[in-house]
């Protein structure tokens, strides 16, 4: 299992493709992990046989789409913040809706940052470059290497 510093939670096929291309264009070469909805994210962090064990650290950044089937972004964020050490995980909420209430709600639920999803590849690449630069170069990440969430 390869350590992926960035976990991307996105259900939309087109957006997923756009993100993958934009990461390449932005020159971000870190391995990425993908989840298709909130349940996938939970599975990612709790699965016994796959993504997380003592030797594979949890990602340093979660790019979280808000509108996803089964378990949406807000429910996922709520779950994450309830399960240490994920309460310290850096979560950047990404959405195409610029509803004011969504921005406030995301910060109320302790998202670290809220970004608007651009539709063009160049804009997306520029955004991902900024996100990568800020959270991997400037920001000091919390230390939760190799720790499993303390599940209830």
């Amino acid at each position: 299992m390869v350590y992926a510093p960035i976990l991307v939670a996105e259900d939309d096929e087109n957006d997923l493709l756009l993100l993958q291309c934009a990461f390449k264009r932005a020159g971000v070469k870190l391995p990425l992990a993908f989840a298709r909805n909130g349940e996938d994210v939970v599975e990612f962090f709790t699965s016994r046989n796959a993504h997380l064990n003592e030797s594979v650290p949890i990602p340093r950044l979660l790019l979280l789409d808000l509108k996803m089937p089964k378990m949406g972004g807000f429910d996922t964020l709520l779950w994450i913040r309830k399960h240490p050490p994920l309460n310290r995980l850096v979560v950047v909420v990404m959405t195409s809706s610029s509803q004011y209430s969504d921005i406030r709600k995301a910060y109320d639920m302790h998202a670290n940052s809220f970004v608007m999803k651009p539709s063009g590849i160049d804009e997306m690449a520029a955004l991902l470059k900024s996100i990568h630069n800020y959270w991997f170069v400037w920001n000091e990440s919390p230390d939760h290497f190799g720790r499993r969430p303390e599940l209830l």
Partner: protein
Amino acid sequence: MDELGSLALAGVRRLFAEVLSNCIMNILLAEDNDNDIFLLQSALRGRKDLSLNIVKDGEEAIRYLQGEAEYTDRAAFPLPSLLFLDIKMPRKNGFEVMEWIRSQPRFNPLPIIILTSSQMKEDIEKAYGFHVNSYLSKSSFTLHPEGIREIVAYWQDCSKAPHLETQPSET
């Protein structure tokens, strides 16, 4: 008609002021070190798209946010959309300020960026435990004018800030 005209004019003025204030990013810096204050001020000097207000200890930071004492004038001391917070400060330290902010429903969504000389693991963990949005350690890179401008640019251009209510909501 005159009355109507002046009412309309007042409305337009209010709208204009609102639009203008939405274009300006209000940053609050809680920092007791004059040197670091100077570095931030000079890196952001002359910028029309942001305003920088400074408080020098934890109690002052809380007074500013509450609009109390010397900070009642919201035009001069607007609610910030971003708080740069030092940890080691007199009166109330950064941790006490974070704890207070996150306990206030009105200020809970305020993005807090820790800017400190401490790189101690315990401080980083503790700060994230209080749900700070980001933790930056002071260095020749972060306090370099280019560094400061790049960090501010992320929060101004990439990340959207929540709008804080000017008045405490009635509950």
